């Protein structure tokens, strides 16, 4: 008890010292009652969200693992809350019958923040530059962009690519006259915000663009600070930020003046099951049995996983693209433990004395890998192993590094995380590669699935392509839902602490990874 007092005395001494130093900062958390409505907001993001290479679309600003709206620049299209396509700069989009020529009409009333008019030349310049320099955007399907006049731009494709509007939604348009190697450091755009200041390694300050052509911007100043998870939580507890990302492990805590916000995502976790028999290097004799794959998908209790591992902050995942416009509802499987057991037994997998099933001398066993540095995936792997054990499948788990994970996933299941705002991810996971005749991340092939996806990419019409993507999942006879080369477990909710009076506008389904997604519509947030 005495010691507590001593500590208190020391603290008080410090407090009085501090008082003369810098009082306004100490108070800033509590005295905004009398102020008129606040139009500035402070958001804490993870340190990896800082765009090291700057705000240049060519170097991944807006794109990459955490797709988001580039804010500083405008894009031709935008994705809506349910991931359909809407227009931003574009007024009209048309595509030729062979899918090789896209013609886009753009608005004529858009100016860059330096006063220059945004023309089709800038658009063409942007796409050609991005194609040359691109780091995380894939532009190999684009041949070249060309401006026909001031407000018409044409994209000449190297191959048909029906989902081009999804690419157009993440490429920020840069000014040709003000672009150079230094652009990423001092970006000029025509978007909702201007980069006012960038204290590298610490914070970014954005200010509303007064001449923005779109809806009125409510939030005039946005400050984004970059902090580790624990530091961000400390900042919340100290009342120094308005909104901060957080993890499920903090979600049980209560913080005065803050609420926990939870957003649905397509940030999924699931494991692959090699779908071809083993030849030594790739494939797996147990998982290549379709009955095993289906029984796992049916027998796993996803909700229990969410409750145990994610503290309830997640939704069951049935595919890599849940809730996307190209998601086929047929993927949803009811949890049916008894059904899974019957399926296994009918397929000849009979339980032995130790409870583990065997079929013609082959033991139902597998080694489930997970990235060793990811505690959530480790817990999911452990929970999946427990549940599969009950089905009579012997599962060991092993943490591995990514240096070996890609190779080993060709013969053993690995716990992955995916989730993108483009069907290309679905394509890359399930479509076969010409060199090997198998899919790239886990051996699998289905020619019908391949052909639906090829048709989807060459399709002229986006709506029609959605249907083809869905058919690749299940067309009534076959599809990825039928073959089950991947078991999808959960979509992890993205969690944030937000000041109780902050009204965050409804969000579109977040992609993989906590990042800039949350501020996609920061211009419309407000305090009440």
């Amino acid at each position, binding site marked *: 008890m005495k010691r507590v007092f001593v500590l208190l005395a020391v*603290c008080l001494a*410090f*407090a009085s010292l*501090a008082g003369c*130093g*810098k009082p306004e*900062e100490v108070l800033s*958390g509590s005295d905004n009652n009398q102020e008129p409505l606040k139009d500035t907001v*402070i958001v804490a993001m993870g*340190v990896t969200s800082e765009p*090291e*290479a700057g705000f*240049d679309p060519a170097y991944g600003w807006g*794109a*990459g*693992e955490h797709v988001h709206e580039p804010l500083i620049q405008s894009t031709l299209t935008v994705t809506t809350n349910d991931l359909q396509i809407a227009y931003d700069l574009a007024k009209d989009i048309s595509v030729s019958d062979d899918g090789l020529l896209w013609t886009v009409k753009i608005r004529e009333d858009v100016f860059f923040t330096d006063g220059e008019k945004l023309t089709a030349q800038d658009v063409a310049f942007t796409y050609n530059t991005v194609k040359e320099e*691109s*780091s*995380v955007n*894939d532009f*190999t399907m684009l041949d070249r962009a060309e401006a026909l006049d001031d407000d018409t731009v044409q994209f000449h494709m190297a191959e048909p690519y029906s989902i081009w509007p999804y690419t157009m939604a993440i490429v920020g348009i840069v000014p040709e006259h003000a672009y150079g190697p230094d652009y990423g*450091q001092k970006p000029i755009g025509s978007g909702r915000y201007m980069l*006012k*200041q960038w*204290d*590298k*390694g*610490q*914070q970014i*300050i954005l200010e509303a663009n007064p001449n923005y052509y779109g809806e009125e911007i409510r939030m005039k100043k946005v*400050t984004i*600070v970059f*902090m*580790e998870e*624990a*530091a961000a939580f*400390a*900042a919340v*507890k*100290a*009342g*120094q*930020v308005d909104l901060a990302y957080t993890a499920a492990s903090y979600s049980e805590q209560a913080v005065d003046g803050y609420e926990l916000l939870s957003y649905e995502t397509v940030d999924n976790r699931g494991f692959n099951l090699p779908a071809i028999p083993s030849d030594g290097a790739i494939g797996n004799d147990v998982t290549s049995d379709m009955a095993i794959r289906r029984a796992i998908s049916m027998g796993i209790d996803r909700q229990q996983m969410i409750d145990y591992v994610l503290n309830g902050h997640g939704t069951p995942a049935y595919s890599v693209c849940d809730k996307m416009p190209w998601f086929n509802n047929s993927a949803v499987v009811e949890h049916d433990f008894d059904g899974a057991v019957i399926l296994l037994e009918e397929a000849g997998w009979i339980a032995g004395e130790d409870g583990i099933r065997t079929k013609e001398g082959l033991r139902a066993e597998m080694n489930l890998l997970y990235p060793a540095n990811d505690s959530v995936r480790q817990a999911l792997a452990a929970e999946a192993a427990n549940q599969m054990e009950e089905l009579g499948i012997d599962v060991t788990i092993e943490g591995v590094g*990514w*240096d070996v994970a*890609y190779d080993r996933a060709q013969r053993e299941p690995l716990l992955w*995380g*995916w*989730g*993108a705002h483009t069907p*290309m*991810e679905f394509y*890359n*996971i399930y479509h076969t*590669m010409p060199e090997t005749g198998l899919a*790239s*991340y886990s051996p699998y092939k289905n020619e019908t699935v391949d052909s639906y996806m090829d048709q989807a990419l060459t399709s002229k019409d986006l709506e029609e392509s959605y249907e083809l993507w869905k058919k690749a999942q299940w067309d009534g006879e076959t599809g990825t839902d039928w073959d089950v080369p991947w078991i999808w477990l959960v979509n992890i909710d993205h969690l944030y602490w937000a000041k109780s009076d902050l009204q965050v506008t409804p969000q579109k389904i977040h*992609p*993989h*990874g906590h990042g800039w997604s949350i501020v996609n519509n920061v211009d419309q947030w407000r305090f009440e």
Partner: protein
Amino acid sequence: MKKWVWHILKNFIRMLLLIFFVSIGAFVLVSLSPVDPLQANIGQAALGALSQEQIDKLEIYWGVNEPPLQRYLAWAGDFLRGDMGISLLYRQSVSSVIMQKLSSSLLLMAFAWIISGGIGFVLGILSGMNRGKRIDRIIKGYALLTASTPAFWLAIIFLLVFSVGLRLFPVGLSVPIGMDAASVSLSDKLWHAVLPAATLSITGISNIILHTREKMIDVMESDYVLFAVARGEKRWEILKNHGLRNVLLPAITLQFASIGEIFGGSILVEQVFSYPGMGQAAVTAGLGGDIPLLLGITIISASIVFLGNFIADVLYGVVDPRMRKGARL
């Protein structure tokens, strides 16, 4: 005088050799590291949305399939011409990235270094002069305690107590959140450096205390102090006339040698306090497989540490001319 120049020249050559070996060591380590730069920087999920063609293009950019020797020689060649290369992550020259990071780190480290050196020296003398008394026991106890306290842990405690609990200090960054760069004053910056610097100096101080204390005890037991006491000199006079110069030597060595420790400690402390600096950049570069940046940081840090030791070496001669002879050996 000539010997003096030769001494410096020899040290300089030694430094060049050291940097050469450090660069090779660092390069071998990164080459052996299992970090896949594509996975680390593009992210596994983003990789899934890329075509093979694009992945091939990126592998060339990150030099994934280039033979290590060739990469090293290319880097070393540029370095000798004064070009540290372009950071793959930041897409800027390595020297400008380091300049940015170093400028904020230096303030923090200088702050911590001066505090720990000054206070450590005074406490060490106090303790040594009062050997066995209560004040000695307290100081010694404190030094032993902090010697075994990890800076990282202390940083978190400080953050929780002073920033979160008492809300006296900011939770992080080196400048106030959301403040216009033009209106950030030096006092703002110092204010933000207080907690991280305090963390660094509190854990860095113990070495200086303990060594100064030992030396002070030696001095106090020496014949010349015994003689001085017999002559009736006061404690303060003894310290001034005989103690300081003798005690200063080990203190200076340690103080300059401790630059390395402060450098290392700052990496962890910067992480906790979201403080921008070399530490953060080194971690990002290491985890991201950004070889030019990592090598650049390694070499700059090695040079700074070497410089610290070198200055200590030179100051030896200044403080105690007898030591200059030793330099010849």
